[in-house]
C-alpha cells in the first residue's frame, strides 16, 4: 500500500496559525480521501514557518469499485419518467432490468462505479483543499487570484511504495506539483528531491529544518532551562510564548543574555511584559531574589560567532525598549508620590471617553464609587475604603506605563497605590477589581476588592443595558457575558447574599442619568436615596413623584417603565449566564429553571443553594418518586381547575375524607408542613426536601386507593383542595412543574 506525502511550501505563515492549519490540512485531505473510497492506516500533520506537511501511510492504491442497485419507475410508466431515471443512472434502456415486486413490474438499474487510482483522487482532493482552505485571513498576490495565507510557492505531492515514488500531478494556477522542497531559508536554501516521508524528514534535518513544532518547542525549552540552570537561574514558564517562538523558527538556536543592571529595579511584570510583547523573549529569574535578571531569545540560525552578533543586537534593542519602560516607571512614580497623587490621573480621565453615550471614564468612576459604597456592607467591607478604592482603581489608565502596556492595567495601579501610601486593601483592589477575567481566573476574596470588582462589572452591565447595547448572537463587543459571569463567580465563591435587583435599579438610574441630559439630577438623587433606604423601585418612584411639586419632567416619568423593564431583562440575562455556568457543573437546566421560578431569584447564592439541593434530591429514589407523585397530583388538579374555571386553594377539610389513605395524607401533610416550614426558613433546602420525601408514601397510597374525581361533588372538590395542598407544600423549594421527567 502506498504512502502519501504532501508539503505546501509558502512564505512565512503567522506563528499563531500554523498548528491549526496543519490539522485542517490533515482533516480536509483525509476526509476527502475517505469520502472517495480511499482508506488509510495513519496520518500525521506537521508545520514550520514556511511549510505545512501531511504524511498519510497505508493508503489504498485505488478506490474500490462500487456497485449500486437503483429502483426506478414501474414498467409501463410514462417515457418521460423512464428517461429521467436513465439520465440519472447514466444508462440506456436495454441496460435496465425488469423485476417483479408486490407492486408490479419495476425497472432496476445496476450501476457500477469503477474504482479510480489514488493519484487521481489525491489530485482532486488536494486541489479542492488548497482552494478552500479555512485560513483565518488569506490573501492574493501577484497577478493571480489564488488565496493562501501568504504567497504559496511550491507543492510537493508524492505517492511512494516499494517500487519507488511518483509525483501526483497537480497544477494550481501555475504552481505545478513536484517531488522537491527547500531547506532553511539561509542555512540550506538549495532545492532537493525526496522519495517519501522518512527521506524528507531526514533530508530536512540535514538542511537545518526541524519539521515538528513540538520537537522545536521541546528543544527550545530544554536548551533554555539548561542554560538558565547552569547560571543558577530559572526560566519563567510561558507556554503561549513557547508555542509562538517555535512557530517563528525552523532551526532554533537558544541564546541567553543579560539585562542591563540599570533596569533590574523595574517591577518583574514590566520586564516580563516588555520582553515578551516586543521581543518575544523569555524571562529568566533568579530564584534567590525573585528578580528577572536575564533573557532568552531564540534565533533561527547558527552563526560563525556562535550567535554573539545576534545576541548583542537583541540586547541593544532590549535596552532601548527598557529605557522607555524605565522612563515611564520613574515618571509615574513621581506622579503617584506627588501631593495630588493618583487623583491627578483620575482627573485626567475626565478627558477620556468611556462610551459616547455613557460619558467619560471619570464620570464612570463616580458611578462605580457610589455603587461600591452601597455594596460594601453586603460583602463586609468598610464603605469608605471601598469608595476610596473604586476612585483610584482605574487611575493607572492615565499612567504612561499602562498607555504603553495596556495589559499591565490594574497591576501598575497596585504598585502606584502602594507608592502613594494608600491603605493596602485599596492597593490590592486596584489590581484585583478586574478579576475574574476568564473562567479559570482566581476570584478576589478581600472584601474591599470584592466590592469594587462587583461594582465595576455591575456598572458596565447596567450602563450598556441602559443604552440598549446588549450582546447578540456571537457579538459581544463589550464582553458583557464575561462581566456577568464575573459577577456570578464573585457572588457564589464569596457566598455573598445580595439582592441584585436593587443594585441594578440604582445603577441603571445612574447610567440613565449619565446618558440622558434631560433627567433632573435632584430627582434622580432623591430616588437613589429612597431605593438605598427601602430597596424597592416602584414605591421609591411613587414616593419621589409625590414629593415633586407640579408636573415632573417627561424624562423622569419615563423611568417608571424603563428602569423595571431593563432591570428584569438584565436579571434574565444573568439567569441565562448562570444556567450556562451551572450546566458546566452538572446541574440540569430544568432544575435551574424550577428554582428561577421562585421568589428571591435575584439572590444568586440562594438560587444556587436551591438548585443544588434539588439536583441532589432528584438523584435519589425518593426524589424521583415524589416528583412523579407531585406531577400526578398537579396534572389532575390543573385539568380540573381548567375545566371548572376555579382555583382549588380553599384548604381541604378532613371531615370529608372517606378513605384511610386520605386521612393518612391529611396527617402527613400536616406533619410535613410543620417540618418543612422551619427548614425553608433556615434555608436548609436539603432538610426541606427530606420532609417532602416523607410525603411520597402517603401520596402513592392515596392515588392507589382513591379516585379523585368522585361522584360526590363535595368529596371531589375536597380531594382537589387536598391535591392543592400537595402542590403548595412541595412547591416551597422549587417549582417542580418545571422539572422534566
Amino acid at each position, binding site marked *: 500500500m502506498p504512502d502519501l506525502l504532501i508539503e505546501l511550501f509558502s512564505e512565512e505563515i503567522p506563528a499563531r496559525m500554523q498548528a491549526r492549519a496543519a490539522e485542517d490540512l490533515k482533516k480536509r485531505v483525509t476526509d476527502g480521501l475517505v469520502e472517495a473510497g480511499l482508506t488509510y492506516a495513519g496520518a500525521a500533520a506537521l508545520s514550520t514557518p514556511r511549510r505545512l506537511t501531511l504524511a498519510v501511510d497505508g493508503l489504498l492504491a485505488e478506490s474500490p469499485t462500487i456497485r449500486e442497485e437503483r429502483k426506478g419507475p414501474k414498467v409501463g410508466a410514462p417515457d418521460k419518467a423512464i428517461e429521467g431515471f436513465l439520465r440519472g443512472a447514466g444508462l440506456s434502456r436495454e441496460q435496465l432490468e425488469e423485476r417483479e415486486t408486490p407492486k408490479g413490474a419495476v425497472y432496476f438499474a445496476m450501476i457500477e462505479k469503477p474504482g479510480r487510482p489514488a493519484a487521481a483522487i489525491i489530485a482532486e482532493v488536494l486541489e479542492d483543499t488548497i482552494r478552500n482552505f479555512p485560513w483565518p485571513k488569506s*490573501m492574493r498576490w*501577484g*497577478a493571480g487570484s489564488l488565496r493562501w*495565507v*501568504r504567497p504559496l510557492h511550491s507543492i510537493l505531492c508524492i505517492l511512494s511504495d516499494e517500487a519507488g515514488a511518483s509525483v501526483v500531478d497537480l497544477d494550481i494556477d501555475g504552481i505545478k506539483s513536484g517531488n522537491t522542497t527547500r531547506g532553511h531559508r539561509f542555512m540550506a536554501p538549495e532545492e532537493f528531491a525526496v522519495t517519501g516521508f522518512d527521506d524528507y524528514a531526514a533530508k530536512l534535518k540535514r538542511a537545518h529544518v526541524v519539521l515538528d513544532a513540538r520537537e522545536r518547542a521541546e528543544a527550545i525549552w530544554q536548551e533554555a532551562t539548561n542554560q538558565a540552570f547552569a547560571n543558577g537561574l530559572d526560566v519563567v514558564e510561558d507556554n503561549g510564548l513557547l508555542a509562538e517562538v517555535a512557530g517563528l*523558527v525552523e532551526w532554533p538556536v537558544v541564546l541567553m543574555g543579560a539585562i542591563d543592571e540599570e533596569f533590574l529595579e523595574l517591577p518583574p511584570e514590566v520586564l516580563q511584559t516588555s520582553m515578551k510583547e516586543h521581543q518575544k523573549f523569555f524571562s529568566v529569574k533568579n530564584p534567590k531574589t525573585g528578580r528577572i535578571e536575564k533573557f532568552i531569545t531564540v*534565533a533561527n540560525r547558527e552563526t560563525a560567532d556562535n550567535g554573539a552578533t545576534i545576541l548583542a*543586537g537583541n540586547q*541593544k534593542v532590549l535596552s532601548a525598549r527598557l529605557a522607555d519602560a524605565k522612563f515611564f516607571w520613574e515618571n509615574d512614580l513621581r506622579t503617584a508620590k506627588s501631593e495630588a497623587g493618583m487623583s491627578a490621573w483620575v482627573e485626567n480621565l475626565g478627558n477620556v471617553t468611556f462610551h*459616547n453615550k455613557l460619558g467619560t471614564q471619570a464620570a464612570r468612576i463616580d458611578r462605580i464609587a457610589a455603587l461600591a459604597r452601597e455594596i460594601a456592607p453586603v460583602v463586609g467591607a468598610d464603605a469608605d475604603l471601598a469608595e476610596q478604592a473604586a476612585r483610584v482603581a482605574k487611575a493607572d489608565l492615565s499612567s504612561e506605563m499602562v498607555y504603553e502596556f495596556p495589559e499591565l492595567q490594574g497591576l501598575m495601579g497596585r504598585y502606584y497605590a502602594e507608592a502613594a501610601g494608600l491603605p493596602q486593601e485599596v492597593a490590592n483592589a486596584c489590581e484585583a477589581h478586574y478579576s475574574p477575567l476568564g473562567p479559570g481566573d482566581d476570584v478576589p476574596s478581600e472584601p474591599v476588592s470584592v466590592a469594587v470588582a462587583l461594582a465595576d462589572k455591575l456598572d458596565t452591565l447596567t450602563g450598556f443595558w441602559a443604552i440598549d447595547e446588549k450582546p447578540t448572537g456571537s457579538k459581544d463587543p463589550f464582553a458583557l457575558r464575561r462581566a456577568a459571569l464575573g459577577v456570578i463567580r464573585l457572588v457564589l465563591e464569596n457566598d455573598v447574599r445580595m439582592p441584585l435587583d436593587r443594585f441594578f435599579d440604582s445603577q441603571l438610574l445612574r447610567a440613565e442619568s449619565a446618558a440622558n441630559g434631560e433627567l433632573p439630577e435632584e430627582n434622580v438623587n432623591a430616588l437613589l436615596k429612597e431605593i438605598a433606604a427601602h430597596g424597592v423601585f416602584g414605591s421609591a418612584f411613587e414616593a419621589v413623584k409625590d414629593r415633586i411639586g407640579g408636573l415632573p419632567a417627561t424624562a423622569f416619568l419615563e423611568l417608571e417603565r424603563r428602569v423595571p423593564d431593563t432591570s428584569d431583562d438584565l436579571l434574565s440575562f444573568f439567569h441565562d449566564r448562570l444556567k450556562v455556568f451551572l450546566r458546566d457543573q452538572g446541574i440540569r437546566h430544568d432544575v435551574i429553571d424550577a428554582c428561577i421560578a421562585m421568589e428571591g431569584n435575584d439572590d444568586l447564592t440562594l438560587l444556587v443553594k436551591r438548585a443544588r439541593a434539588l439536583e441532589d434530591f432528584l438523584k435519589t429514589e425518593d426524589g424521583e418518586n415524589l416528583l412523579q407523585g407531585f406531577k400526578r397530583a398537579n396534572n389532575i388538579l390543573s385539568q380540573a381547575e381548567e375545566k371548572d374555571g376555579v382555583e382549588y386553594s380553599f384548604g381541604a377539610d378532613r371531615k370529608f375524607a372517606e378513605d384511610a389513605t386520605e386521612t393518612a395524607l391529611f396527617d402527613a401533610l400536616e406533619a410535613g408542613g410543620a417540618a418543612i416550614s422551619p427548614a425553608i426558613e433556615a434555608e436548609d433546602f436539603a432538610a426541606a426536601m427530606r420532609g417532602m420525601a416523607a410525603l411520597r408514601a402517603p401520596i402513592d397510597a392515596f392515588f392507589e386507593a382513591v379516585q379523585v374525581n368522585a361522584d360526590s361533588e363535595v368529596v371531589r372538590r375536597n380531594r382537589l383542595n387536598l391535591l392543592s395542598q400537595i402542590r403548595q407544600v412541595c412547591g416551597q423549594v422549587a417549582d417542580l412543574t418545571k422539572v422534566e421527567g
Partner: protein
Amino acid sequence: MTETNGAPRSFQEIILRLQNYWAAKGCAVMQPYDMEVGAGTFHPATTLRSLGSKAWAAAYVQPSRRPTDGRYGENPNRLQHYYQYQVLIKPSPPNLQELYLGSLEAIGVDMAMHDIRFVEDDWESPTLGAWGLGWEVWCDGMEVSQFTYFQQVGGHDCHPVSGELTYGLERLAMYVLGVDHVMDMPFNDPDAMIPLTYGDVFKQTEEEYARWNFDVANTEVLLRHFEEAEAECAAILAEEHMDPKTGKRIIMAYPAYDQCIKASHIFNLLDARGVISVTERQAYIGRVRALAKQCADAFVLTEAGGYVPETAA
C-alpha cells in the same frame, strides 16, 4: 566595482546604496512627494499607483512627519520628521522576499551573521481605507522593515496585488552603523571635508517643530484648513470629466488626492495639539478615509488607473 563593498559609513551612503540597488532591480527611482505626509505610503506613487491593472515599480525616499512623535531631538529613537524608504512593485514578483533580503545585504547586513525573521504583522491604514497582509522584518530582534502585500486601497480590491516594502531609514541606519543616539549618526562620510552628524542637520529642526506642533500651531487656522481641503477635494472631483477648454477627458485624481494628503496631515497636527477628543478622532479619520476613497474611485477611471479609452466604433 561599486561602492557597495564593505560596511557603509554614513546615513546617506545607506540611502544611496538602496537607491542603486532598487534601480538595478528595475524600479523607477522617484523623488519624494512635495507635500507633508505621515508615511511613504501616502506618496501617490504608492497609494494611487497600487490601484488599477497597470504594472508599476517605483522606489523613493519619503520624508515623513508624525507631529506626536516629536521629542525635541532628545529621544535617541523618536523624531517628528524622519525618512522612509519605500518600494512598490505591481504585480508583486514571486521573488520579492529574496529581492528584499538582497537590499539588506547591499547596505551591509551580512546574512551569515544576523538573524532575519519575518514576523506576522498585518498592515492597515484607517485613513487610506487600505489593508494588506505581511510581516515586520526583524534583524536580531529589531524591526527594520514593513513588508506588505496590498489587498485593498481606498476601498478598492487590489488587482493585481502590489508588494510594498517600507524601511525606517534612521532606525535601520543606526543599527547598521552601530549608533545609539540618532543625533550622533554620521549623516555624510565621517572623513568628509565637513563631516556632519544627523544632529547637525536636524537637531534644531526637531526642537523648532516640536514646539510648534505641540504648543504654537494655530488650531483655528488648522481646523479651517482641514474643512477647506475637504471641500476642495470634493469640488475637484465633482467637475465634469470632459475639460471644456481642451475638449479632452481629464479627471483630476491627483490634484484631488493632494487635498486628501493635506487634510490627513492637518489632522495629525490637530491631534498633536491635543484638541481632538477620542470620539472625534474616529470621525476625523472617517472623513479623511472618505476623501481617499473618492480619490481612488476617480483614479481608477484614469488611464494610469487602467482605464482604456473607448475606440471610435
